[in-house]
């Protein structure tokens, strides 16, 4: 086992909270993409897309920070032990950041898949403008949101008082 193996061991441990994070991110991404496929007046397209992306970013960041915060509460003591044994702050941050990005990206991919299905249905009903560009933008927004949400918790985790966390 090396540092990467150890990091991976923490990341791959997906709990119920992680699944909720994936579902939440997927839902917000799907809604964002689906909403982006319906266009308001041509002159307002950029503002509309910016507003949608901002809302999605905030929802994903908030969801992921809540999800990672519950992870942190469960892992407090282990984080303290790792730090006491010589793990640096960067390693602790890497655990939370990697996991947050994994959950966010997974959620984004699932969300895009949902949105794709949704677009097929709406295409039958009426015309939509679902494009590769909007998929890429949404994926970027989802990943950026998960990074922002995870970063907050990662910084918090790296600053935990080691003695207090070890005491439990």
């Amino acid at each position, binding site marked *: *086992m*090396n*540092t990467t193996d*150890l990091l991976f*061991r*923490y990341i791959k*441990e997906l709990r119920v909270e992680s699944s909720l994070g994936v579902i939440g991110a997927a839902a917000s991404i799907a809604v964002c993409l689906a909403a982006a496929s319906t266009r308001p007046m041509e002159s307002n397209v950029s503002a509309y897309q910016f507003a949608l992306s901002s809302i999605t970013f905030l929802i994903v960041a908030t969801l992921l920070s809540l999800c990672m915060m519950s992870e942190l509460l469960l892992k407090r*003591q*282990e984080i303290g*032990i*790792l*730090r*006491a*044994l*010589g*793990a*640096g*702050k*960067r*390693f602790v941050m890497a655990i939370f950041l990697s996991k947050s990005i994994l959950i966010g990206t997974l959620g984004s991919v699932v969300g895009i898949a949902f949105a794709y299905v949704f677009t097929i249905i709406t295409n039958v009903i009426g015309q939509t403008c679902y494009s590769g560009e909007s998929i890429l933008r949404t994926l970027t927004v989802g990943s950026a949101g998960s990074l922002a949400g995870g970063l907050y918790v990662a910084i918090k985790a790296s600053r935990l008082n*080691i*003695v207090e966390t*070890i005491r439990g």
Partner: protein
Amino acid sequence: MNIEADAVRIRGLHKMFGNTVQLFGGLNMAVKSGEFVAVTGPTGTGKSTLINLISGLDFPTKGSVEVFGKDLSKLKESERASIRAKNIGIVFQNTHLISKLTVIENVELPLIFSGSSDKDREKIAAEMVEFIGLSKKKHLFPNSLSAGEIRKVGIARALATDPALLLLDEPTSDLDTSTVDILLPLLRGYSYLHNRTIVLATNSLKLAKLASREIRLRWPELVVDAIQD
């Protein structure tokens, strides 16, 4: 890190908890390199806190704690982490193994953080697990072990990096008599043969007698004004 300097030097140590409890009352002490010192005293006198202060996990309210000539409170967190990984082995009062890692992986942990090569890490961890007599259980998780076995793994983990300073906080609390009888000479041998410094916090007189010196901690002072407030 200057291994030739005193392993531990404490000057005018005070540690406040809240506004009422003041531990150590300006404690001054030094532990020479290669010395085996027992820190004794009743519960609540700050034995575990002293171990935390020496390992750089906690900081004094007043005074200084130097380890191998370095005041840990003045170092960056990354430097303290590096010193803990490479030079300090800690056996916690409640051992604290990582539940998702097997016995051998738990022993490997400090070797990972100290930057040992993959080959060395696996070899050393296997040797340590064999040394504590848990070779057959090396791939088991901590929840399959008895309290005594968990304690042994904690000790193996602390010794894995061959640290210059070994800190033990009540290391025999979960061990049976026969294991204690094996462990105690081993600790003494580790100190004398390898010239390693050991600071042992304990209530056990039997354990304290093994050490070359005993430091008895005083009862904490209660700050009366703060209590009345």
